[in-house]
């Protein structure tokens, strides 16, 4: 909720300034970000899902604009405006309002206008170091605000990716499992489908075409598909080319001819997703899992352990930190380490701060290559509510 009185506004501003002071002392440059953003870019990056929750409007020139639904994409835009190449190391911090339509009506727990104060760290070569640094500076800012009792929850999508890489799967299956990871139901269905290897349902007509396609002969396949369309009297229209259509058909044919996903590998993926517990013992558990499954996760687990050690040296208390392999499942743009900071008084449903690694986002916003990026922001209204409650 926006503040109801001038006093509350002043308290929010003062709290934001305090947090920003911690960030700037740690070397993060305070940057101003425009509230009004081009809608097209946001929607291309975050997808229609968030569009339903974004305030989109058209200005008198017909340009489609929006009120920023978060401050991370605007920070990426600012960075690319300064450094079009993208891969230039930079640290930024910001404070400002973000706006999201609340379909069930706005209330205190689901405000449509809320304040985010956060940091972004771009193009740091040492990923684990940067991950730990970002958590460290957020924890330091919370501690400076007077908050002592916090709990850290972490996850690591990089481990999941490493697990898929280690299993003998066609690259398409990996892509698909990563893609469905965000939706547990679709993910389970996909696993079941790959295990049973029921060929994807096809109409008879397409079936007979599919039987004539050889996944090893791409150009020949295009000719067959072109001929098929021609004979069926179907015109090639639209932006997708014959090659795109034919390539996907080939992938489908290849999938259907692939031996099914081994039951023990599907089981391994399922038991990985179910791993949870103290962060300090997570890598031992995962190591045992990998050993039983006879796959090599050494590299990813070493990175995980190193990050934990770096977190500790950044002053983060990790002995109560919780790990969940599934954590991060609802935040589609993250690509690696993810974390949330929980206050026991507010519970896991209302984290005080959250963030993680999103190495694809700058490229999606327009960088010519993928740029390592990690960031986090603090829900300042929650922080203030907590501080007020504990002082009274």
């Amino acid at each position, binding site marked *: 909720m926006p503040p109801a009185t001038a006093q509350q506004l002043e308290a929010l501003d003062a709290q934001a300034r305090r947090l920003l002071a911690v960030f700037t002392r740690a070397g993060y440059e305070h940057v101003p970000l425009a509230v009004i953003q081009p809608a097209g870019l946001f929607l291309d990056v975050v*997808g*229609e899902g968030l569009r339903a929750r974004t305030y989109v409007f058209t200005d008198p020139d017909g340009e489609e604009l929006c009120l920023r639904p978060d401050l991370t994409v605007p920070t990426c835009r600012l960075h690319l405006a300064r450094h079009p190449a993208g891969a230039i190391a930079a640290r930024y911090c910001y404070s400002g309002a973000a706006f999201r339509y609340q379909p069930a009506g706005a209330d205190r727990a689901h405000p449509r206008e809320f304040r985010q104060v956060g940091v972004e760290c771009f193009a740091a070569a040492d990923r684990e170091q940067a991950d730990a640094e970002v958590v460290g500076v957020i924890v330091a800012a919370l501690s400076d605000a007077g908050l002592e009792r916090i709990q850290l929850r972490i996850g690591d999508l990089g481990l999941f990716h490493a697990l898929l890489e280690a299993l003998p799967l066609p690259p398409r299956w990996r892509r698909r499992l990563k893609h469905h990871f965000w939706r547990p139901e679709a993910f389970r269905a996909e696993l079941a489908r790959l295990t049973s290897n029921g060929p994807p349902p096809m109409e008879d007509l397409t079936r007979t075409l599919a039987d004539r396609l050889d996944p090893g002969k791409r150009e020949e396949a295009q000719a067959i598909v072109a001929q098929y369309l021609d004979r069926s009297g179907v015109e*090639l229209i639209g932006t997708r080319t014959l090659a795109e259509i034919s*390539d*996907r058909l080939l992938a489908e044919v290849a999938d259907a001819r692939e031996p099914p996903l081994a039951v023990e590998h599907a089981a391994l993926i399922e038991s990985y997703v179910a791993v949870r517990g103290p962060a300090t013992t997570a890598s031992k558990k995962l190591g045992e899992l990998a050993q039983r499954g006879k796959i090599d996760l050494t590299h990813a687990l070493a990175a995980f352990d190193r990050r934990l050690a770096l977190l500790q040296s950044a002053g983060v208390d990790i002995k109560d930190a919780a790990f969940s392999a599934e954590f991060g499942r609802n935040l589609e743009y993250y690509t690696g380490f993810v974390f949330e900071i929980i206050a026991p008084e507010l519970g896991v449903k209302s984290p005080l701060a959250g963030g993680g690694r999103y190495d694809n986002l700058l490229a999606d916003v327009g960088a010519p290559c993928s740029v390592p990026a990690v960031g986090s922001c603090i829900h300042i209204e929650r922080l203030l509510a907590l501080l007020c409650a504990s002082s009274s």
Partner: protein
Amino acid sequence: MSDKLILALPSKGRLMEQCNALLARAGLTVAKAGPARGYKGEIAELPGVEVNFVSASEIAQFLKAGAAHLGVTGEDLIRETMADADERVQFLKRCGFGCADVVVAVPACWLDVRRVSDLDEMAPGFRRVHGRQMRIATKYMNLTRRFFTQRGITGYRIVESLGATEGAPAAGLAELIVDITTSGATLKANGLRVLEDGVILRSQANLVSSKGAPWSSELRALAQAIACRILP
């Protein structure tokens, strides 16, 4: 608002004619009141009713706002206008006309895309090749978004289209469409095909009551009486 029952009816076109015929079958004679080009009317047999003639999409707005007690309009327009339609209105009676399906249609040449889930599979590759998300042309922005959200599909953009939507893919303005169809002939003529599980809504005109309108027990009884007389 007067203490009359406000009934919003389509003001023009085929929907208006069919609506008048429906009411005539129910033994109700709709007549314009006041100047010939006015937008108010009455029903000779039911003096407690005031008729408002408005466009079909405005009828949905009237019902949403509670500015009319009853209205006759397409279910597609009701559901497009209100995300929580069942909370705000009650569908009293199907009218048996204005039948049309809201469907997802893709170029018929997309042999690799037969079901809605194929779009989800196709989207990342499309983005890699074309550097942007696939576009869906439609005037049903809300129905489209809800349908795809329910199916977990996010990699697309909606392009608002207010006419000749079925021409958008061939013109390169969008990759696929969500539009209304009765026989499918127009889609076919434009090189499009409905996905196997691509029917979003089977729509037709309905007699609808607004939960937000100012109701009294007399008005409720009157509304019930009208609903009972209507036979599709």
